[in-house]
């Protein structure tokens, strides 16, 4: 069964090629069937491979399939090879599974598009194929190919409605900002290849552990550069500014690319090259600090957004911050666990938000919603479940188990500590506040004065099935990893430890239960705060914002801590100024001089071309006289 591994990325690619070539000439249902079907079959293959992998694990819990050699230049011989182990398997299942759900949802939600229906599915299939290549890649070069492929699809899909220039700008911003990270990652790959002589991931990790002592400069450089790539892709500080603008794309795109899968590629990269980060403890600590800082910054910014999708985008940044925090303290399996659960509930949140947005005719302002729980019951319940899972409401939601695991391992890990834990806990409080702020603003309260206009509630089966499936997964998805205090069933981390090392725990487990009560009550307290401020008496919040200081703070946070302005002032404007100052390129002067030389000599020669025969004869005669003179005077 594992022999069919190549089918997993190949099917979406095949779908992409078919749709790209003949997509415009086939009827919409066929395009939808190809688009969603290829990913669906890919997901089925992934499921059966998962079953085969778990029931009869291959030797060493790793299976590699060599497809063909890529290039062979000197000693550089990267292969097109796919590798599956526990980590890749989880990624593949989530990407193909959630990807299929979102494709199914899109077949209906994108039906209103006048044009670009098959284009949309072509891009989406290309994305899924690239993402699967990324997580299945056996060497870092193939991984990089997938990495750039998903970046390209992200660009294409953010700018899907390309007729609005703002969308094109958002797409370019996403592309360019991630490019900064990608460049850093490419340099990191050069360092790795130059010093270790291979890009095959397993070999890299083995040789790095042998050749680089812990804390050596090369290990730090390589890990830091890879971290740069991960930070760019996963929208962490300081390259996080592109993600909120990326919400310009269609909602399924936001759900699939900018919430569930692509933005977690950085998490996957760090987990995949974990040995490098273990060898560079400073960089690993930086990962944790970046994660903690991002989760706090993004969480606070999420509180001020009025656009439901931007709020969700900040929430995504914040949740990936949790994953980085987990990676930074060495809680590898917790990070992957949170990635999986996050993919479920964040996709669910985006999709149900998409239902709301579609029902309100592309209205994304939460303050113009309100009281929608009666008109859109399905979206309400799904959003509520997603928000509960996001806020990690105790016991019943999957988010509780994953976030609790991260917090607990942050506390106990050798490289963690109370400060990072406190940041995580504060983030948990923020999370539940902004999650339920969204719920209360959107679905509770009085219907906004403009709201009672036509509400188009016609969710068909192809929207209901993904929503309900993801809702169920958001609730029960956490039961694969029960903490010691609650059943002690660590199936997931046992599975992941076949690929990633277990967390180095420091303290005893005696008060894990206490901590869980604590974090659980923090989540509930956050819901209570949200209730007070945004439902019970919205004037509290409004009065605060109307004060000058509050207003300034609101604007500051609304703009995502004004990172955009900072970067604009630091990089964009000086660059534009320099470009403007150098409009007549200095280097070009040299070439212009050469051109000038030719023009001048052309004028001279063309003046010699007088058209007067006698003058030519004169020239000939003078030449003859000179030559004879040279012969005579020699």
């Amino acid at each position, binding site marked *: 069964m594992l022999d069919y591994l190549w089918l997993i990325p190949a099917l979406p690619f095949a779908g992409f090629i078919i749709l790209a070539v003949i997509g415009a000439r086939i009827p919409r249902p066929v395009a939808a069937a190809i688009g969603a079907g290829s990913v669906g079959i890919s997901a089925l293959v992934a499921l059966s491979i998962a079953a085969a992998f778990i029931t009869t694990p291959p030797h060493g819990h790793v299976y590699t399939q060599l497809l063909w050699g890529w290039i062979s230049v000197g000693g550089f011989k990267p292969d097109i090879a796919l590798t599956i182990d526990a980590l890749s398997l989880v990624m593949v299942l989530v990407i193909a599974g959630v990807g299929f759900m979102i494709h199914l949802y899109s077949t209906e939600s994108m039906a209103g598009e006048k044009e670009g229906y098959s284009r949309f599915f072509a891009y989406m299939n290309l994305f899924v194929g690239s993402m699967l290549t990324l997580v299945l890649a056996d060497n870092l070069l193939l991984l990089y190919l997938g990495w750039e492929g998903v970046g390209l699809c992200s660009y294409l899909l953010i700018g899907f409605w390309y007729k609005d220039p703002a969308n094109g700008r958002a797409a370019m911003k996403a592309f360019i900002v991630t490019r900064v990270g990608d460049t850093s990652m490419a340099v990191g790959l050069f360092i790795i290849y130059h010093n270790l002589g291979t890009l095959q991931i397993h070999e890299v990790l083995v040789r790095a552990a042998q050749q680089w002592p812990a804390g050596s400069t090369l290990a730090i450089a390589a890990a830091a550069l890879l971290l740069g790539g991960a930070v760019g892709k996963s929208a962490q500080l300081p390259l996080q500014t592109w993600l909120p603008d990326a919400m310009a794309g269609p909602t399924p795109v936001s759900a699939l690319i900018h919430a569930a899968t692509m933005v977690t590629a950085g998490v996957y990269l760090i987990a995949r090259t974990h040995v490098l980060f273990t060898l560079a403890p400073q960089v690993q600590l930086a990962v944790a600090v970046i994660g903690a800082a991002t989760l706090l910054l993004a969480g606070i910014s999420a509180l001020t957004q009025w656009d439901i999708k931007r709020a969700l985008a900040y929430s995504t940044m914040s949740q990936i911050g949790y994953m980085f925090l987990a990676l930074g303290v060495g809680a590898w399996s917790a990070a992957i666990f949170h990635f999986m659960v996050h993919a479920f509930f964040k996709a669910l949140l985006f999709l149900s938000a998409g239902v709301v947005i579609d029902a309100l005719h592309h209205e994304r302002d939460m303050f113009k919603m309100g009281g929608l729980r009666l008109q859109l019951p399905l979206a309400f319940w799904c959003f509520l479940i997603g928000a509960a899972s996001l806020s990690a409401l105790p016991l019943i939601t999957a988010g509780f188990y994953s976030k609790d695991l991260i917090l607990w391992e942050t506390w106990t890990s050798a490289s963690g500590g109370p400060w990072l834990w406190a940041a995580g806990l504060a983030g948990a409080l923020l999370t539940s506040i902004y999650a339920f702020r969204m719920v209360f603003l959107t679905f509770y309260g009085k219907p906004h004065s403009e709201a009672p206009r036509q509400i188009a509630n016609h969710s068909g089966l192809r929207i209901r099935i993904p929503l309900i499936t993801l809702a169920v997964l958001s609730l029960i998805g956490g039961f694969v990893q029960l903490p010691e205090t609650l059943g002690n069933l660590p199936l997931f981390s046992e599975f992941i430890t076949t690929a990633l090392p277990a967390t180095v725990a420091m303290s005893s487990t005696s008060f894990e239960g206490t901590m869980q009560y604590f974090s659980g009550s923090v989540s509930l307290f956050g819901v209570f705060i949200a209730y007070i401020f945004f439902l019970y008496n919205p004037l509290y919040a409004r009065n605060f914002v109307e004060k000058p200081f509050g207003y300034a703070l609101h604007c500051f946070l609304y703009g995502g801590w004004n990172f955009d302005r900072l970067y604009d002032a630091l990089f964009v404007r000086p660059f534009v100024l320099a470009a403007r100052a150098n409009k007549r390129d200095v280097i070009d002067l040299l070439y212009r001089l050469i051109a000038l030389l030719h023009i001048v000599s052309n004028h001279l020669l063309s003046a010699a071309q007088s058209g007067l025969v006698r003058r030519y004869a*004169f020239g000939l*005669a*003078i030449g003859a*006289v000179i030559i*004879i*003179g040279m*012969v*005579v005077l020699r």
Partner: protein
Amino acid sequence: MMTFFYISAAVALISSVLAISRSNAVHALLYAIVSLLSVALIFFMLGAPFAAALEVVIYAGAIMVLFVFVIMMISSGPGSTQQERRWMNFRLWIGPSVLSAVLIIELFAVMSPPPEPMSAKPIIESKQVGIALMGPYMLGVELSSLLLTAGLVGAYHLGKRKDDAAQTEDVTIHD
């Protein structure tokens, strides 16, 4: 013998100078013929009677007749002589004269040391020339025939009066 040489050399030089400096084309042509004839005499004195005969027949005869034809066709009456006189002024001759003088000085310098005392040389008969032509210079003769053919074709082609085409091209040149 030398007296004849000096006389004909003087005639050749003088008539050449007159040939290039006359305003009247027909006069100039006649001077040129005189120059060619005197050079033919010198050929004879240099022991090349065959070349002398060719000079008279072809140069002074055929080629100059061509000139006569052309002059008759294009220059009409005393107007052209007047015009020629206007085209020639003294200053125009300075440059060419200086250049020619320099060339002569150079050529004399090349030809030094001065000529040795004269010695009798054999006369080269037309038979020898013919043998040389049909022997080692066979290829040259063939090439000459090609050249003459090309000249014939070229002259025929250029000399054709393309009335219609010429009319339109007239316009393009004069505009």
